[in-house]
């Protein structure tokens, strides 16, 4: 069955200096400028409390905008009610209507907009077919599994053919396996429907896999909005660098002097085409930026402290004889992943490196590695901005 459930008119979204100040003076979102293209899949990501959900709810109209303007398409919707914005939202809790069957849940939005019964029925049937819910139409939400409920929530949004889909962590209540398959399904669905989608998540992997562009937020401020590749390779500041990537970027306090950067007895030439003023910097390198020894790459001797065997690759953690970087930005980024809060015996930095599984590694046995100079990142220790 190949019915038309695509949306004719995808609309872009423009946020123009949007602020949200809650009563009591808590500033949840400040000065966000963001342009989302028609048909784009935009992910808002950041640690909890960064304002990403608030921003989404302001697009939906569920939260008042304190200052700034919100446009959907060419319409200024800043002061419009959610009902008047032609957006559909998928909630984290799914928020299905408990006393209605799956069919009536999906038809509700159409019914409220005065769509005729016959068309409602046809559209609900189409969407149910696409989502594999056709045999469940007469059931109540209580009789569905978590994954099925999630699909119903999705179907309820799709059936409306809205200008914009808004999704607030829709996959976070599914178990890990189902989440991965629903992620792929979401991507396919977006390709097929072509509806502008704004998707909120705290999970940077979900953000990177789903988003055509990803907007990283911290404390209500937009840090960087770019393609996943650019976020990964060209983070604009320490926070974005630390937040994106798993395992996270390795940081160490280093010193630039005469075209070379040094830390822990190592001295690496500043990569070609980069000019750095002499002084303290924070040096960052991704776990994949450290490799097995190669030609022309500065060598590094690592004594493995922790070895994590993942089957097809190995994560090796080793200490570096230079001070650890512990700033607000790196801490905020790591808190989101709620990990890495390990008690370390000293204040030396720890590097993580990804190695192929066939490289033999033994705890405590020195291992020769090399740093890829092209993969180095430099940050200003005072501001955290990329240099």
């Amino acid at each position, binding site marked *: 069955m190949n019915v038309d459930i695509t949306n004719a008119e995808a609309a872009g979204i423009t946020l123009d200096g949007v602020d949200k100040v809650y009563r009591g003076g808590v500033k949840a979102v400040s000065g966000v400028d963001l342009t989302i293209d028609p048909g784009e899949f935009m992910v808002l990501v950041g640690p909890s409390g960064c304002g990403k959900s608030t921003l989404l709810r302001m697009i*939906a*109209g*569920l939260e008042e905008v304190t200052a700034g303007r919100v446009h959907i398409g060419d319409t200024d919707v800043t002061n419009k*009610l*959610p*009902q008047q914005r032609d*957006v*559909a*939202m998928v*909630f*984290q*809790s*799914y*928020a*299905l*209507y*408990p*006393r*209605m069957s799956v069919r009536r849940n999906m038809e*509700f*939005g159409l019914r*409220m*907009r005065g769509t005729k019964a016959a068309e409602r029925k046809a559209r609900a049937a189409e969407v149910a077919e696409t989502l594999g819910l056709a045999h469940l139409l007469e059931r*109540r*939400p*209580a*009789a*569905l599994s*978590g994954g099925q*409920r999630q699909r119903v929530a999705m179907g*309820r949004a799709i059936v*409306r053919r809205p200008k914009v889909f*808004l999704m607030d962590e829709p996959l976070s*209540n599914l178990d890990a396996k189902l989440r991965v398959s629903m992620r792929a399904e979401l991507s396919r669905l977006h390709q097929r429907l072509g509806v502008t989608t704004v998707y909120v998540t705290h999970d940077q992997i979900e953000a990177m896999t789903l988003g055509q562009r990803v907007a990283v937020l911290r404390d209500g401020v937009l840090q960087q909005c770019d393609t996943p590749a650019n976020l990964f390779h060209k983070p604009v500041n320490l926070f974005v660098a630390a937040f994106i990537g798993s395992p996270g970027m390795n940081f160490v306090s280093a010193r630039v002097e005469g075209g070379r950067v040094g830390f822990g007895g190592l001295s690496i030439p500043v990569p070609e085409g980069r000019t750095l003023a002499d002084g303290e910097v924070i040096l960052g390198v991704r776990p994949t930026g450290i490799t097995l020894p190669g030609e022309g790459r500065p060598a590094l001797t690592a004594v493995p402290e922790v070895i994590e065997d993942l089957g097809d690759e190995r994560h090796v953690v080793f200490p570096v004889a230079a001070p650890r970087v512990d700033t607000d930005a790196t801490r905020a980024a790591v808190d989101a992943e709620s990990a890495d809060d390990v008690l370390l015996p000293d204040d030396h930095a720890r590097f993580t490196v990804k190695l192929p599984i066939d490289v033999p590694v033994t705890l405590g046995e020195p291992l020769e590695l090399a740093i890829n100079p092209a993969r180095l990142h430099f940050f200003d220790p005072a501001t955290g901005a990329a240099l």
Partner: protein
Amino acid sequence: MSAATLDDTTVPKGQTPRKGHGRIRSRWAPYVTVLKYALLLFFLVFFLMPVYALVVTSLKDPAEVGVDTVWNLPSTLSFDSFATVWPKLQDGLVNSLMLAIPASLISSLLGAANGFVLSKWRFPGADFVFPLILFGMFIPYQSVLIPMTETMSFLGLKGGLDGLILVHIIYGLPLTTLIFRSYFAGISDEIVEAAEVDGAGMLRTFFHVALPVAPPAFAVAIIWQFTSAWNDFLFGAVLTTNRAYWPVTIALNNIAGGQAVPFNEAMASALIACLPTLLVYILLGRFFMRGLMAGALKG
């Protein structure tokens, strides 16, 4: 309170406390259990005594009734007392039904609307309005009696059932508002927001989304409102001037308060008069069940 909840701190019969279970049992525990049950039984009997007297007396043959034989079981079952009082109560019963049914339904529905708006469709000043409504619960009947009758006669509503219904609806609102506000507060905000995004305004969200999940709250509110409207004597006595509109409580008072009324007739009328509230409780009690929200959220 059920015996089971009291019992769960003690060891089940025939079992010794398991090691490592965390609690040390006193060797007096079994005696304490026996004592608890004895105490419960005592209070049970104590509280059921009047009910026993009521039922037994109403079923006795008029000749058998007397102060010294109150605790005796009837020698033969007789429904004569019921037959005697029925004609005197009939009109009152009908009036009370005509009063209590609309009063409890309308009061509950309005309370549901209030509760919904105060918990899920907040407006500026809601935190001020709610305590104000709640305050109505603490105003004693007697203190409003005179202004109320004045108002009702000014409105031309004194004397009949309509005025009495109105008074009961208004007097019920604080409590029904409280019941529904608490009930709706327990419902996820996201469901209301989903309806909003889906295009439903306040009224349609109320009718399509909130009301369908509210039967448990309706059961509580209706039982309470029905009972209090049914049992009310004061408002009925003041506001109904014509005996044609007397609710059953006043009819009952006239039977029991008359000169040398036989006990059996008083008891039979009391039993008849209290049956509808019991019936409402039994019929609506099953809506107390939880689980109407099942499946709405992640689960």
